[in-house]
């Protein structure tokens, strides 16, 4: 089987801070990580490979330093890594990204065998849209299976697979056919620590670097800013509410006193709540 996993290198958003005065993002020194949701996808891919045989190729679209993320993925055990990097991709929204990535996946297929499954994470922690996976599926005509919690079985001969899919009020049992695109729900597995062999392979493997031309991307108008129908016009921090928070007086008071004051303040503003909580024998 040939499995392709699309990952993204993202800033560790837990560590992004906004400058209190200028409201700009303090991006210096924020470490980059593999989008945590993608690790679940990678682990699922590795498990499928180990179970059914084959290869895992990891692909990312990003600036040159995204190579670090690919090396990490190789260390976890992926067999091959491709970095899709080109200044023409700068400013891509999800539509433009899914275009570039789907072209690259097709090219990977030409060179290394058509992929049977394309995995992506559920969403990214910096974009949070969950749109690129479905976009790739549509463009490559892959069966789209999102929010998959478990791959129950794959029959390599009949090319049929069964998965469990997380829905709002329950779980769907779906039967489908390869090739397909699967987005994996978080928490379904834990990414393994690569063995020495994996680490050596990662250290020695070249990361294939493809520009737009290498990936067979002909229509540059579909990439980057030009290929992005959505446009960010404004980035801002929400202002404080007009009415300021009433700060409880903590000077020269015990915690118990402040707590009592707080409860009184809450009840003063929410008399209905006060009635419900303080009255006797209410249902």
């Amino acid at each position: 089987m040939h499995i392709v996993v699309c990952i993204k290198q993202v800033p560790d958003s837990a560590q992004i801070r906004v400058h209190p005065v200028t409201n700009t993002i303090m991006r210096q020194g924020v470490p980059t990580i593999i989008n945590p949701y993608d690790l679940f996808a990678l682990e699922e891919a590795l498990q499928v490979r180990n179970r059914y045989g084959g290869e895992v190729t990891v692909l990312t679209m990003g600036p040159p330093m995204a190579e670090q993320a690919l090396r990490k993925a190789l260390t976890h055990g992926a067999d091959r890594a491709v970095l899709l990097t080109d200044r023409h991709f700068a400013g891509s929204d999800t539509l433009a990204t899914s275009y570039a990535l789907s072209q690259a996946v097709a090219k990977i297929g030409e060179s290394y065998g058509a992929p049977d499954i394309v995995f992506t994470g559920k969403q990214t922690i910096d974009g949070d849209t969950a749109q690129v996976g479905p976009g790739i599926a549509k463009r490559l005509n892959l069966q789209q299976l999102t929010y998959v919690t478990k791959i129950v079985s794959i029959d390599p001969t009949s090319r049929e697979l069964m998965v469990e899919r997380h829905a709002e009020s329950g779980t769907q049992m779906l039967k489908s056919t390869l090739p397909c695109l699967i987005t994996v729900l978080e928490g379904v597995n834990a990414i393994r620590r690569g063995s020495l062999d994996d680490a050596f392979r990662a250290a020695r493997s070249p990361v294939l670097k493809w520009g737009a031309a290498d990936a067979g991307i002909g229509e540059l108008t579909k990439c980057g800013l030009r290929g992005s129908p959505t446009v960010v016009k404004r980035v801002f921090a929400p202002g404080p509410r007009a009415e300021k928070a009433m700060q409880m007086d903590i000077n020269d008071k015990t915690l118990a006193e402040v707590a009592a004051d707080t409860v009184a303040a809450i009840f003063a503003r929410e008399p209905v709540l006060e009635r419900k909580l303080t009255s006797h024998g209410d249902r």
Partner: protein
Amino acid sequence: MTKSKFDAIVIGAGMSGNAAAYSMARRGLKVLQLERGEHSGSKNVQGAILYANMLEAIIPNFRDDAPLERHLVEQRFWLMDDSSHTGVHYRSDDFNELKPNRYTIIRAQFDKWFSSKVREAGGTVLCETTATKLARDRSGSVIGVYTDREGGVILADVVVLAEGVNGLLGTRAGLRDMPKPENVALAVKEMHFMPEEVIAERFGLTGGEGCVIEAGGTISRGMAGLGFLYTNKESISVGIGCLVSGLAESMENPYRLLDAFKQHPSIRPLLAGSEIKEYAAHLIPEGGFKAIPQLFGNGWVVVGDAAQLNNAVHREGSNLAMTSGLMAGEAIFQIKSRGGLMTKHNLSLYKGMLDKSFVMKDLMKHKDLPSLLHTDSHNFLMTYPTLISQAAQNFVRVDGAPKINREKATAASFINARSRWGLISDAVRSAVSWR
């Protein structure tokens, strides 16, 4: 791809480890380097000052692409009491030479660069991989290492232990003892960011010039310690370190010492308006010559901080680390090229090279200073700074008292504090230790 046998495994990708790995890989040896951090430098903390002379011996053209902050043109030594400092400054345009002698660097970036050089030279570097145990043959010679990754033992002719001051591999294997608290300092530092122009303005620097302040005195509350302030391009590294034994005795918190140092009226204006972006702590070997462990054995050598090769008096460590790594690499290459085995006897070549170099010579020269400072730190770091500060003030203040009276007052203060005998003894002991 299975792992085959290596000529050498280097444990650690810090200064000494990178120097060793690079020098061997460059010579065509099959080198594996294991680093437990996410990348080279992620576990290292240093001021940091780079000594160009030693790096030139390893990578002559490092200035082409190494990330360097500022080249140093001014050095300030300050003796501080709580509200003042008395200092000696040396600044010279001579340091604006074609190949400057010292630079400030930021280790996180510098180590990454150095590590890329190791890879370019053909070394294999595995990060996030910790060597957990030395592998030995029946005779007890080291033949490889086990790691925390699945896959068994990696074999090599020799293991170079560049694992740092609190490295566990060598100590667990009984090759050396854990460093004693009186032989290790705990240093804490912060990086304060401010615009390049502000730094230039504040320190009178042009272009890539840099300045270094090193300070001793009451800032370390009587413990043997040193404060420092280095100018980087867009940031200032400020820190303070004290002997661990001192910290344990006094129950002082090094971050509180750093805070007091930053608030000192001489230091605070230099940091005004800055933004703290990073803080870190690290252990520094301080034992000097007398604390150096056995440096070589059957199938192994130890380099850098793990070997306690740190000249605390001249605050030099990274150059000794680099040089020891280079010499270990050279020695191993020489043994290999004449077809020799990595026996204790053969590897003594490494120590021989160290002995002939500035590394051992400098350490030997100052071998008594650590114990002097340790036993008498209160004296030197609390009493003298206050006396000297008062003496300086007496000299500088103009208030109508006759000068002869003022000079007598100064002399009296010294004698009262230390007695004539004490003063002479301090002078003699210092001179002897220095020489």
